[in-house]
């Protein structure tokens, strides 16, 4: 396959969660989500309530992909940030390499503050993901699924 898998180890996951928590606090945001550009949710921190973050991640990736397509049509490589302002709730999305940093905020914060704080943390996220990608490539053969059997795969499709 053209893209290698992302393998997220526990220590990395906790580091990412800590970064998201810091961003949420610094930007007075309601919720911060890190999403892969293909639409997979990587980590989330904040007031989730009954928010469907899986759908949010998929739609955010679709949104970035669509605006990225528009950017190319007008001669830009991509639009690195996207903002959607609602009456009460707003969303700011920052494209950082192959991941998207999505911040949901309300009137406790402002777009300017969210943009500033997102930009400040984006270098750290980019560095962390570069390291995760290196680790993912290096450990591909050592994944627990390397020895997965046909029976184990078949068992997923057997009636319980």
């Amino acid at each position, binding site marked *: 396959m053209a893209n290698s898998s992302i393998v997220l180890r526990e220590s990395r996951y906790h580091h990412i969660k800590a970064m998201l928590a810091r961003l949420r606090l610094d930007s007075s945001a309601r919720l911060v989500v890190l999403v892969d550009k293909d*639409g997979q949710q*990587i980590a989330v921190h904040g007031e989730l309530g009954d928010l469907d973050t899986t*759908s949010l991640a998929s739609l955010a990736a*679709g949104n970035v992909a669509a605006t990225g397509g528009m950017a190319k049509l007008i001669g830009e490589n991509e639009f690195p940030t996207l903002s959607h302002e609602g009456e009460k709730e707003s969303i700011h999305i920052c494209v950082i390499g192959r991941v998207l940093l999505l911040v949901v905020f309300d009137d406790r914060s402002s777009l300017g503050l969210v943009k500033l704080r997102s930009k400040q943390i984006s270098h750290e996220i980019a560095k962390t993901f570069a390291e995760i990608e290196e680790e993912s490539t290096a450990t591909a053969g050592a994944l627990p699924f*390397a020895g997965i059997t046909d029976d184990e795969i078949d068992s997923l499709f057997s009636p319980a």
Partner: protein
Amino acid sequence: MTFINYASREINCKIVYYGPGLCGKTTNLQFIYDSTAPQAKGKLISLATEADRTLFFDFMPLELGTVRGFKTRFHLYTVPGQVFYEASRKLILKGVDGVVFVADSQEERMDANIESLYNLEENLRTYGYELSKLPYVLQLNKRDLPNVIPYQELTGELQRKGEPVIEAVASTGSGVFDTLKAVAKQVLTELRKS
């Protein structure tokens, strides 16, 4: 692109349903959604036009079960089939782990099937994928209609690499889960190789 999260012990894979307009891609997803227990699925998101045609994509997350202590989650997407949505159709293929090509078995849709399959191969290539190396299933849909092309003839035209071919009537659910299983198995088998 598979995403493996050791902290939440999850494997996430992306499967895309591709095919010409009105071939039944959304109907496949709708049937899977309607037939799956609430705890195994998320919401079915449909970005559709007012006339209920797919505008950008349909999406639903589906959990199949646990293997080696990891939950297996499949993110199922459809593309818009209509020819003029080419730009958005291509975007959905990014990071795909497995593809289902839903062919419309009706005689008058043969050209549309061939055009869409060619378009799939082209679009995959722009991301550096080769259909020959990707988990892939051919579904022959609408087998209940009176004007369908015989199985052998349709397979002869559309089968690319000895991939599993499933006859289906997505509106009643016939063949829908067989198709999903066939592609999901290949995706998991691919994980073993990676």
